[in-house]
């Protein structure tokens, strides 16, 4: 019933001091966290955008946020080479030096371990901030970290590909390496755990099947591809790289040998993509601040966005509320704008 979902206009509008670098919505309560390039972490009420708490955390800029699944800890990271652990039950966050810019944070599916991309290291922390393991001296700066669906393996994405390590009884050497020429900017594992995909500086997307390692590279985008997202069913993967969304069908034998569906609707390069966690809506945004909601569905005929909005400046982050009723965009101007996807 995707046709009943319409963008009801702005739900609320709030602001943080600097350009939004990351957004994350808590699972346990209706609170949204925003990290900005001034280094502040702001907590906003998901219902109305009221600012609940704000604090300087990462000098030089905060880049990454991750809420603990089934828990109440918010992890943050940034240019100061520290990880902040903000426990909702305590007033003051605790900080831990990990060395190097923190570009990405990812909790294991059970929430017991936090993987940190810190400079040229992949660092595993427990929820109290104790280092469980470090894999230092990666060939280049780690840009993203991903977990296998069962939480047994963790991978870092960097120049040259993905390197997988065992998280339980940590292996010093990678247990698998998925090589890729060029520099990986972001990686995602499909929710069903069967695929991992990366988007890359050299204007390509690379996908690998877990764990056969069968892979395919989708090259030829006009620019670097810096956003990519799987839908909740793992059938669809959307990525940017142009002003059209590429939608790849992962059903059956996967996207190999298939052409993607293209969704035109933005005037400029896509800068952010996010699938609704409860339904089939895809939110997209461009470098000019244009934002659209799509209900692509299985039929190739649905290629028009179901609604559009213009936020005026480049959207850097998009995140859905866990209940799928709101999607929030953060912009380079520090605007944080919630859009309702369904009539409440």
């Amino acid at each position, binding site marked *: 019933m995707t046709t009943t979902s319409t963008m009801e206009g702005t739900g609320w509008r709030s602001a943080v001091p600097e350009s939004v*670098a990351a957004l994350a919505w808590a699972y346990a309560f209706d609170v949204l966290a925003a990290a900005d390039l001034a280094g502040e972490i702001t907590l906003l009420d998901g219902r109305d955008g009221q600012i609940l708490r704000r604090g300087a955390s990462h000098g030089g*800029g905060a880049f990454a946020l991750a809420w603990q699944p089934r828990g109440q800890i918010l992890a943050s990271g940034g240019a100061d080479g520290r990880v902040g652990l903000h426990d909702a039950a305590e007033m003051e966050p605790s900080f831990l030096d990990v060395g190097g810019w923190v570009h990405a944070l990812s909790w294991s599916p059970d929430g017991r371990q936090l993987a940190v991309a810190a400079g040229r290291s992949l660092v595993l922390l427990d929820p109290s901030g104790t280092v469980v393991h470090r894999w230092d001296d990666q060939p280049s*700066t780690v840009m993203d970290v991903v977990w296998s669906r069962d939480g047994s393996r963790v991978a870092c994405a960097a*120049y040259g590909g993905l390197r997988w390590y065992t998280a339980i009884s940590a292996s010093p050497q990678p247990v698998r390496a998925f090589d890729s020429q*060029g520099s990986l900017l972001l990686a995602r594992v499909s929710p069903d755990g069967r695929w991992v995909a990366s988007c890359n500086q050299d204007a390509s997307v690379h996908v690998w099947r877990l764990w056969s390692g069968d892979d395919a590279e989708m090259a030829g985008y006009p620019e670097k591809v810096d956003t990519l997202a799987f839908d909740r069913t793992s059938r669809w993967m959307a990525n940017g790289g142009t002003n059209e969304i590429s939608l790849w069908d992962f059903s059956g034998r996967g996207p190999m040998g298939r052409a993607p569906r293209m969704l035109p609707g933005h005037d400029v390069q896509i800068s952010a993509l996010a699938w609704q966690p409860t339904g089939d809506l895809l939110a997209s945004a461009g470098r000019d601040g244009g934002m659209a909601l799509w209900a692509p569905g299985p039929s190739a005929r649905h290629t028009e966005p179901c609604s559009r909005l213009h936020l005026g400046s480049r959207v850097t982050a998009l995140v859905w509320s866990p209940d799928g009723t709101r999607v929030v965009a953060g912009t380079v101007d*520090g605007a944080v704008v919630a859009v309702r996807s369904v009539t409440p």
Partner: protein
Amino acid sequence: MTSYDQKVPVTVLTGFLGSGKTTLLNRILTEQHGQRIAVIENEFGEIGIDDALVIDAEEEVFEMNNGCICCTVRGDLIRILGTLMRRKERFDHILIETTGLADPAPVAQTFFMDDEIGAQLRLDGIITVVDAAHLLPHLDEVKPEGVENEALEQIAFADRIVLNKTDLVDEGELAEVRRRITEVNRLADIVETVQCKVDLAAVLDVGGFDLSRALVLDPAFLAEDAEHQHDLSVTSVGIELPGDLAMEPLNDWLGWLLSNRGVDIFRSKGILSVDGMPERYVFQGVHMLFDGTEGEPWGDAERSSRAVFIGRNLDREELESGLRACLVP
């Protein structure tokens, strides 16, 4: 799209440790007060200015997966410039200080290979600071096979050479240093200084990659310096040809040149007279990355073509006969 003038200028400062690079950097930061300047440092310097944003970087060179082996970029700069561009707080100028061992090519190519960076920032120039008293031993250093002489490369890539510590050498030595620099790079202006006391416009407003600025290719720089020509690994080759070039063979030749000799051609610049074109055709290149456009109309000026190639193991005969073959018969 941001127009040229709205793009934030970026200056690359390079040079060996002890050349006076940090002195120049501190001078820029002190004298350009009122400007918001971001500094990206690859070398731990002593920057004593509070209102500049200083970011440390570690050199990471990435090959681009496009079949072009000289198309390398700096991953660390892409990340840092990416966050600088997204800040609400705007900067008037960005300075990138590289180590004396850094290859300038990936730094320059980053601005042409990453469209997001190229849309918002412009590379204004590569400034190489040279210690007049210590340059020659660096240039003459014999490197093992396959190892680059970084001092040579940094001079070859420069838009401007700040020839520092001129008080430590006598006139004869200074003339020899100048001659050797010009031998490698005929395009770069040389600014002589003591303690890096230079007019900042000479280092911050260079327009080294700007095709709309009139390229001044002095004919004196183009002539072959027969007296001193000896076996040099990195040199400049200047060519001047009267008459008009035919567009089609010219395109073919430039295409051939960049794909077959692009690895060895560090930088190239030219003003060409193309048959049927009332304007000058101006171009500049870094390795295989090439940018050309229409310049000023010729008007009553005498039409001729001038080009300079700076690079390794350049074959003057091949370059000259290649360009000559494009002349309209």
